[in-house]
């Protein structure tokens, strides 16, 4: 059952990618600035998948639906997957493989710096996303490492925010989503500590 669900979700996650390919090669209807369309659409999907991934644990805690966790890795990996066309377009079409220019961009332009940071932080998470790595690192250390996703998401939101000229509505939406999810995690973490202090109080 979960297998079927996973396959369906997997295919659904690929839909935006195939819609882009369709738009490029078949209908050629990505608007006047197709490179910008591709960059923005993949960028949006990276942030959406990051937010979806971050939703899993709070949702599980609120609903008690433990099966939700089975989808977390896939959603996180799809966030990483959509960084690949996003970066390819940047390197190929915006910078023409001029790696000196790219290095200057990363060093000098905050929105590129922070976007690149967000990407780099996702690499160890993608590598260590397998069960084998959870065992190798141990659950506690693995969970610690994977909290980096919050940094990655914040970096992604800043990347978007620092790019827009004036209208910050869209990056602000992602910012609020990530912010609320982070607050929820902090809140539950703090709350889960309280019984411990109460207990130690009783002992005393």
């Amino acid at each position, binding site marked *: 059952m979960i297998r079927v669900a996973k396959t369906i979700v997997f295919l659904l996650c690929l839909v935006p990618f195939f819609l882009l390919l369709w738009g*490029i090669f078949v209908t*050629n209807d*990505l*608007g*006047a*600035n*197709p*490179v*910008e369309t591709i960059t923005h659409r993949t960028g949006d999907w990276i942030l959406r998948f990051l937010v979806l991934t971050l939703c899993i644990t709070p949702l599980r805690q609120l609903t008690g639906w433990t099966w939700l966790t089975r989808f977390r890795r896939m959603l996180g990996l799809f966030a990483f997957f959509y960084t690949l066309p996003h970066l390819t377009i940047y390197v*190929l*079409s*915006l*910078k*023409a493989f001029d790696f000196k*220019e790219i290095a*200057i*961009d990363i060093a000098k*332009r*905050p*929105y590129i710096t922070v976007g690149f940071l967000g990407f780099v932080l996702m690499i160890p998470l993608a590598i260590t996303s397998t069960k084998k790595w959870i065992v190798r690192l141990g659950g506690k250390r693995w969970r610690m490492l994977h909290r980096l996703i919050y940094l990655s998401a914040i970096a992604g939101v800043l990347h978007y925010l*620092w*790019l827009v*000229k*004036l*209208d910050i509505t869209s990056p602000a939406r992602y910012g609020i989503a990530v912010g609320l999810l982070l607050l929820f995690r902090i809140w539950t973490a703090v709350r889960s500590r309280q019984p411990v202090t109460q207990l130690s109080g009783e002992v005393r």
Partner: protein
Amino acid sequence: MLIKKASDIPSSEITSEHVYRNRRQFMKAAATTLGVTAFSAFLPADALAGSKYDTDEKQTPLENVTSYNNYYEFGTGKDEPVVNARTFKTKPWTIAVSGMVKKPQVYNLEDLLKGIVLEDRIYRMRCVEAWSMVIPWHGFPLATLINKLEPLPSAKYIKFQTLYAPDRMPGQRYGSLNWPYVEGLRLDEANNELTLLAVGVYGKEGPAQNGAPLRLITPWKYGFKGVKAIAKIEFTDKMPLTAWAEAAPNEYGFYANVNPSVSHPRWSQATERRLTGSVLDQLRPIQTRMFNGYTQYVERMYSGLDLRKNY
């Protein structure tokens, strides 16, 4: 009356975009067929060659020119103006001329343009966001209008304002820029041979999302200088505070000359993506040229001016 209503022209008479874009070849071919090639040597060069300022680079298709617009009065998304400006009426239209000018007064646009001959100029347009288009503008040199209006010798700048009408321009109901949109030029820039007031694109008036009924074109400057739907013109001795310079003074200046060596604080201006309607043309960026390739016409106006400071 100079401004024709669109309905005066049956659609069957409108030159198709394809023929229009290839009109020089079309005319040359026609001339050859008629065996008047030899005769054409006696014609003024411009008769067949179009404007001497024209670029022969691949033009951006009409469909792209009219559906990808930075026009915040009709929404901050580039795909919004084509939708939100659909019902925008550009007739009747008045232009208030004020300040250091012989006769400050409110004109009907039609009266103001009486006797002015419209022409077509194929210019590059470089947006500050590092994309560019090649657009055949339909309009006339701003200098023609300035001569008609007779500014006083004390006037040093010309200031333009977009119509302020939040009921008709939905973007003005929200505070993004400080409405109405203000742009301006030094008077010598305004009188430059390249500077146009455009009434339309591709040989026709309109459409509204491209700034009809009247917009500014300064091809050596970033696109945001091209103030649209002009409702006020003022001659002044003070440098106008322009809309984007007011919104983000460290990012956008009064001059806004295209300059590949002066980066926008957040991105490089060294290259650009040319929008030609084909994704393949965009696979590689092209080098941005100083003054967008119009150096020979504009350079002398800026001798002695530090273009790094006066971005």
